[in-house]
């Protein structure tokens, strides 16, 4: 069912965990099955220098998270935000059709992180990124409602540590 690449990334994901004081954070949820992905980026001179993820999800979601960190690292924000599900699926040697939505989650998380960075820095936000942000925002609300308690505790812990 899963390709060799998917299973490799799943068993040994690259770049998972948190980044201290990230420049941008993308938090997204999957309304279809209820998975959650948080993505952190460090940016220097418009280039992603470090990237990490935290994902609560299936094999495909974990593999997609892992591969997108590989794909995004070293790329300009513009190029990174443009990484779509096709690029993820292709780099993973394919995904079962029912699992393609898990790769969308990864692409959403990354564009949200870029959006967050631009916003924080008071930079101009491209129209398509703004549009994407609106769509994702709605889905995120639904999903965070679901995991309300877990999200709250987690965010509180971050604040406490910060």
């Amino acid at each position, binding site marked *: 069912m899963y390709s060799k690449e998917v299973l490799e990334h*799943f068993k040994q994901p690259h770049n*998972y965990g948190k980044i201290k004081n990230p420049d941008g954070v993308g*938090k997204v949820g999957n309304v279809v099955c209820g998975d959650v992905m948080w993505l952190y980026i460090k940016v220097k001179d418009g280039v992603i220098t470090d990237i990490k993820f935290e994902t*609560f999800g*299936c094999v495909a979601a974990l593999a997609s998270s892992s591969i997108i960190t590989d794909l995004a690292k070293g790329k300009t924000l513009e190029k990174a935000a443009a990484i779509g599900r096709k690029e993820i699926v292709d780099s993973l040697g394919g995904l079962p059709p029912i699992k393609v939505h898990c790769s969308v989650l990864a692409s959403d998380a990354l564009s949200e992180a870029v959006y967050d960075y631009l916003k924080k820095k008071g930079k101009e936000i491209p129209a398509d990124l703004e549009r994407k942000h609106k769509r994702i925002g709605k889905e995120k609300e639904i999903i965070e409602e679901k*995991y309300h308690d*877990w999200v709250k505790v987690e965010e509180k812990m971050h604040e406490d540590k910060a």
Partner: protein
Amino acid sequence: MERSYLDYAATTPVDPRVLEAMLPYLREQFGNPASMHSFGRDAAQALEQARETVAKAINADVNEIVFTGSATESNNTVFKTIALANKGKHVIISPIEHDCVLNSARWLKGQGYEVTTLPVDRFGLVKPQDVAAAIRHDTVLVSVMHANNEMGTIEPIGEIGAVCRKAGVLFHTDAAQSFGKVPIDVRKMNIDLLTASSHKMYGPRGAALLFVRKGVKFAPLLHGGGHEGGKRSSTVNVAAIVGFGKAVGLCMDEMEAEGKRERQLRDWMISQILERIPKSYLNGHPEKRLPNNVNVRFDFVEGEAVLMRLDAEGIAASTASACSSPKLEPSHVLLACGLRHEEAHGSLRFSIGRFTKEEEVKRAVAVLEKVIKELRDISPFKEGR
């Protein structure tokens, strides 16, 4: 790599003694029991011997046993022809039935029948008084499974049977998971119709049974040459049924000792998991539970990921998480028990069996502990660790 099969509720390996019993009927004793010559007579004799073993195991009469090809077929027969042959327009089912019962009931609804789905408590238990309350003057059939395939919860079918008998309503139970593991007496339990399957009890696939109590109006699902006394036409799969018969005999002989052994392994596994893994919970009833079923759930991780990480270490289990289902929906069984979507998300089932060794169970718990920790390290939610 060391491999452990801990998914006996999905299917079981054929016991070597069963295979041994079957082989002659694939070789020299290949005859068709419908034939009059000696080849046919030999096959017919083997078939009837299997029927006797099976009938005795549930305290039925030999002519109350109909051999079918699968539990799905048996259940379909109950809903698609027997329900129609008997008077009434209303059936009652539990919400945690196997898909073949749920979908057959749905089909019946399409034929103009009404279907009542009973409530269950958080363990998945049906209350007999709820059955009594749901029965109407036009109820033809009540169908409640003996033991649930996901959580292993054992239903009070004796009491439900008594309620149905008193009301004069047919009572069917799907015993695919329980037959051979816990005692069944169709007389004492007032069962009118019962389904069981060979491949869940160390027999081959392709053989199953439908017990039909004498006096119940029967109508066949498969019409044809009149095999099985006209109750199920199809050339009889003699070797598989001989295997089924042998498998039933072995399960009955070994039920007590094997049940005791499995219960010990099960309880050890459950207590170790709950003790060693934070934020882990048991699904289903702690005691009213099949001897071989362990169903647990974990916060902050998703079932398919757990299953595949275990698989990478050679351990075979099963999950009912949304991500693992073809419709991306969590298990209807867990939801019916009141579990929230996110609780069902991290559910995992181990089902042990005759060939499961203590070391395997020990290794499974150790690997599980590691896998859950690793996946939680990756998860955004790690509360309290």
